[in-house]
């Protein structure tokens, strides 16, 4: 037997039985973890859907010695449904106002044009 045929006769790659069993076990666990999910796993997505119909209002106020920028997202259908989120704080009021301006513009971007809420929608009772 010459050198060439010795090299060509190299045994094919094999794994032992214990490793193979372990491999299949891993596959089993993978199949189990890839089970179909429940539709209410997406609840959080539907819960937050109203946020796409909100007007954005910027609010700059002083807190703990700094100027804090908050954004208020109010539903255009019912402005009393809103959330307030802290964005950034700055020691300089002008800088804070500038940041509020830009952050509001960024958050209020919408294909339908900027959505707004008016005071009339609140249905205030003057009595």
């Amino acid at each position, binding site marked *: 037997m010459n050198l060439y045929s010795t090299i060509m006769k190299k045994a094919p790659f*094999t794994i032992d*039985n214990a490793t*193979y*069993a372990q491999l*299949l*076990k891993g*596959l*089993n*666990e993978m*199949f*189990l973890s890839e089970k179909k999910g429940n539709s209410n796993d997406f609840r959080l997505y539907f819960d937050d859907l109203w946020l796409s119909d909100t007007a954005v209002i910027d609010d700059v106020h002083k807190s703990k010695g700094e100027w804090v920028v908050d954004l208020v997202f109010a539903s255009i259908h019912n402005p009393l449904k809103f959330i307030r989120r802290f964005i950034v704080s700055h020691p300089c009021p002008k800088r804070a106002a500038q940041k509020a301006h830009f952050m509001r513009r960024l958050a209020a971007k919408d294909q339908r044009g900027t959505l707004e809420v008016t005071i009339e929608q609140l249905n205030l009772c003057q009595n």
Partner: protein
Amino acid sequence: MYNTKQKILNSSIQLFNQNGVDAVRLQQIAEDTGISVGNLAYHFKNKDAIVESVYEYIFEEFSAILREYAVSTAMTSFDAQLSSYYDFFDKYQFYIADFFKTNNTLNEHQQIWQGYVTKMLIQIKSRIDYLVLNQDFIPEPMSGLYQQVAENIWTNLIFYIQKCRMQGITPTEMQYKLAIWNQLRPYFTESGLAEFNQLILPIFSY
């Protein structure tokens, strides 16, 4: 479209099945393929070369069946794999008969084959483990039982067709598959049985 080489392999497999590997001559293979012996010699140097190629072909096909495990562990996938096993063992009976001829040491092919069938057994055990994990199967009533069940199924998978021929019955794929499923049936939980009735039983009803 088959090329000549493939045609030769197909008729060899057929002749091996009918007459056994040793009894087939090159002349027969050439006649069955519809080519001259000279042409046959052009494609394969000698009979050993043909046998070698046939074995390679068989191993390739069997690994394809084993690979089906990676697709899914669901019951329907096991059923599909059973069909593949039936086709395989029906087509290559001569191969098993080959094992009974000699009692001395296994040759190279038989050693490779041994590796494959061991993997097959491990797969069956692994499928049972999955069914237990998925609560389709009751937890193992006594240790080692499911290993025994897996080995029985494995024996059935390989020798069922031979057994039928010995009894003078012509085996069908449905009988083959039902024999395997019935072996698993006592171990189903309620939910497993419900899934079985919904997914697997309809296959046998027509």
